């Protein structure tokens, strides 16, 4: 599978801290260093709306399941729920003691979950008017870097070298010691494996049920950046940003480098978002984002 550059968007909002597809991949959200969030149609490079209200850098954002709300968190320690259509902040959730590094909705977008630099993960009830978190997960001993939420699990990575997943159904927390500070963690699409990228420039694939190491992917460089990684939509490739300005693609099973997508030479690619269903990829580097994909898929998307 080959990825080509389909669109390049200069977001004009300072450094793009994060880029995220929405739930169906039709839109994307970029979080800017200028305290703004922008909603785009990446396939047409169309700016749809700008959301201003954060007091500082926006570090992560997430669209709700019905795409009517955006959840965002930033350096101003707040988590904000935005109304997509009006652009107004609906709720501001204050409670974190330090910058909010990652935010996620649960599957039904009834709970906002935010991870922070203050070592906690907070679960906020969006349905009620309560301003107190439902639950605070204090297991991490260092900053939370990345988070994934499925319908019954919360997967977090932390700089304390651990990947934790909280199984709500079992009432169980599983800590997997990785040995290096973990910057990004993702479930594979089948939910059976965990992909964790660490600061030692190695991405590891673990079996979720046993915690055994299945594969390792290396070659790229992370340095001191929070480099994000991901699995493509068919679970065939592992994708990761790198300091050298390329998106590295590995074969999941063979662990050999399949492709290197040149984004912006010399500038690290720190954020990455994989389309939930189609072979598209968004990468963010500096102030611009790029949409990658196969042209045929793009055509299909347009037809659809």
């Amino acid at each position: 599978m080959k990825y080509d550059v389909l669109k390049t968007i200069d977001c004009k909002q300072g450094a793009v801290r994060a880029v995220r597809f929405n739930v169906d991949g039709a839109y994307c959200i970029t979080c800017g260093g200028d305290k703004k969030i922008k909603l785009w149609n990446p396939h047409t490079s169309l700016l749809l709306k700008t959301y201003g209200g954060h007091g500082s850098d926006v570090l992560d954002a997430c669209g709700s399941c019905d795409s009517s709300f955006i959840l965002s968190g930033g350096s101003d320690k707040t988590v904000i729920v935005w109304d997509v259509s009006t652009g107004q902040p609906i709720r501001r959730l204050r409670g974190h003691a330090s910058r909010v590094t990652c935010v996620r909705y649960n599957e039904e977008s009834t709970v906002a979950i935010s991870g922070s630099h203050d070592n906690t993960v907070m679960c906020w009830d969006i349905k009620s008017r309560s301003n107190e978190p439902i639950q605070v997960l204090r297991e991490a001993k260092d900053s939370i870097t990345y988070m994934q939420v499925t319908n019954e699990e919360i997967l977090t990575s932390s700089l304390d070298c651990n990947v934790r997943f909280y199984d709500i159904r079992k009432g169980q927390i599983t800590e997997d010691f990785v040995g290096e500070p973990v910057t990004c963690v993702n479930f594979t699409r089948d939910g059976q494996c965990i992909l964790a990228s660490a600061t030692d420039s190695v991405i590891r694939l673990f079996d979720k049920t046993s915690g055994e190491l299945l594969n390792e992917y290396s070659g790229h460089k992370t340095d001191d950046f929070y480099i994000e990684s991901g699995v493509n939509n068919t679970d065939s490739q592992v994708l990761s940003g790198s300091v050298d300005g390329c998106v590295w693609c590995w074969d999941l099973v063979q662990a050999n480098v399949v492709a290197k997508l040149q984004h912006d030479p010399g500038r690290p690619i720190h954020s990455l978002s994989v389309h939930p269903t189609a072979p598209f990829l968004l990468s963010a580097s500096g102030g611009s984002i790029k949409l990658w994909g196969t042209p045929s898929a793009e055509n299909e998307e347009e037809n659809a």
Partner: protein
Amino acid sequence: MDSDSDDDFVVYGTRRELDEDDIVARKRPKSIADQTVKDKQGRQRFHGAFTGGFSAGFFNTVGSVEGWTPQTFKSSRSKRADNHGQKPEDFMDEEDTGEFGFAPKTVQVKNDYDSIEENPKKRKFAVRDRSALGHHALNSILKPARSSVGIRILKRMGWRVGQGVGPRLTKKEKKHQRQEISQTKKIYGCSLPESEKAPEPTRSHSGSETTDSDEGDDTDITFAPDDYDPFLINPKSDSFGIGYKGLDRRPVLSNHFSLFEPPVTVKEKSKQLTIQGKGFGVGAMEDEDEDIYAVDDISNYDFSLESRPSTSKAKANSLKALPSPNEPITGFVASTITLKKNYFPPPRLPPNFQPIHVVKKSRFEPSAVDQEDNSKKKILTATDRCAIIDGAPPSDAPPSKQCTEAMREDNVEKAVPKPVADGVFRPFVAYPDKQKRYEQYLVLAKNGKKDQLSKLQPLSMTDWERERERLEFEQASKLYQPLSAAFSDRFVVASQADDSTDPLVEVKRTADTQNDRRDAAKRKMFGPLTRVVRDWAPASLLCKRFNIPDPNVRDTSNEKKKRPKFSVFNFLDASTFNAPSVSSETAASDDTPTVIKQEVNDVEVEEQPNEQVIQPIDTTNDTAIADVDTRDQNSTISKILETGEEPSSKEDLYKAIFLSSSEDESNDEEPDPVTPAQSAVGSSAPAPIVNALRNTSPPRGIFANLDLDALNARKRDSDKEKESVPTEKSENNEQKNSVANARECSTNPTSSSELDTFAYGPALPTKPIAKEITKMTIVYKKPRDDDKWVEATSTKKNKKHKKDRKSKSHHKHKKSKKHKR
């Protein structure tokens, strides 16, 4: 005409000149503009026609001449002591507290005014707030009866109740005075005719003398003047005529009426005419209506034919006068039961109570008790005295408290184990007895016999003290607990003393619990070494929002399930699931006793006849098989029990049971690998079986492309090959397993390939065949997998529905928004 009219009349005198001043002096109607309400300072009070605003600020502006001046900041730092905080008065104008303000204040006599008892210096004028706020209605109800200040002063001056006030009089003077008073008696309204005048009532209360006697005409003896009749004024609160009482406001039915009193009375006999109880009068010209609401009264009826006895006067008198204490009030009957008053004895004083309270001048002063000790005024107890006298305990003394106490203590010591050893914090060291009791209490609490504390306590303690001590102990035991697990997790016990001064002392590196994990991670031995699984309690609301049943609630039921019970159902699972594992165990490890093999064979033999029934049901219904199998298992159990096998074999049996239960769990939950604990229990479980138990859902994701079935099939084929050649020897587990199978096969007439078809297909063999148990497990698993699959899809469907609904509702929302616009 008018012009002529002047001429028509003759004018006498000269017309007076109209005085200019007079005209000016004539009162002109004041213009409305002039009719302004002004306050004391001459400022306009109200502004605007209807607003009724109050005057504010400087000439109705705000602030001062310069305009509004903000309050200057005053540091309260230096005078923090007199910073009292704000009162409502600070925000009110002076008019507000005036007569017409909303919080009028008047100067009043203090309620507890007392010129004599109180220090006059302290006397203050109580400024009572007349506003409803802050006035306690309850206070006025509970006010103690007390005489007025004037009466108290008079009493102080020698006046007695019942006497009049004024200079003392001789008898003659007094008589004269009395006559004067009677003559000048005022009569309101028409005076009654002279004949009907009531005789002057005798004064019953005039204290000094009651009878007129002409004898003792002593001028020396003087008397206090007569007291005036207290002139009681009932405040009139209604606008009815004098003496009229309106109808009762309460509704007719709720009104309590008595049969003995005429509801409407016109008392003519006692010369006063009192009228009560009619809403509207009847005019002179009209007849009185029939009173439909009148309440019939029993006194309206005659009970005998004879004429009424003329005791009306007496009756009237009795009505007027208060009944004597012995006679009951009309309508009441003297009670036959004498009322017994509840007598509450005064509280018993504690034995060490001192009636004198010594106020300490400073808190550093030694306490009164200490002083007493110092002065050796200690009250000697019986034992003390004995010790002083001869050192022998009081033996001939009657069984005193102390004796019983000692006996009790003996009993208690028998009942109560010795207090726990050192290491426990001692909060009551100052009181050794109490400390001892506390330690004993701790032991009791440990044993769950807290209520036996009362037995420990000496009799001399009052109930109140006992209760207090019990509470104290409870508190102390709570406070001085060892650090809870949550805390001890976070803190490390200091290796150095707090007061150590040497900062350069080498700090020992604490044992790093993560070290082994780090090593394992370094050696890339991820898995059980790097994994920690802990219990975690998600908040119930979180579970709710995730649409997941609360695991905390479910946990209890799970625990119940986990409890190793020797139940028939456990046994059922043991046979179906663990027989293969046990058999493979026997094959894998040669050192296991041969008894197990026998037992397993027994089980197999026992099951054989039932197999036909079991297997077809297996595929359809799980519960049915349970019924069938229980019978089966019962028989096996009984058989085992009867045979009275060796303990070692029994142990294995139990092991098998527990193993089954743990496997059962893993089935209930997600396909799970063998956790270390599990593998420790069932160390013999061979890999292929575990894998079969593990992930049986169709391959997804990265495994999607792999043909697992094909792989499995190949393996099975190879197994078959090995089975077909039983003599072939090999080292690995699987092969051993196959050898075991082969052994079984040798006992069974049917081949394994036949069994294969039998296991999956619905066709039944014609004759009972020995079961190959590994196959049976597969059969047993199959329907479960199906169940699981179905469940998964159903949940997905549900979610879809929800999403649909949500999107619909969203559309609605949007629509409504549009409408609004």
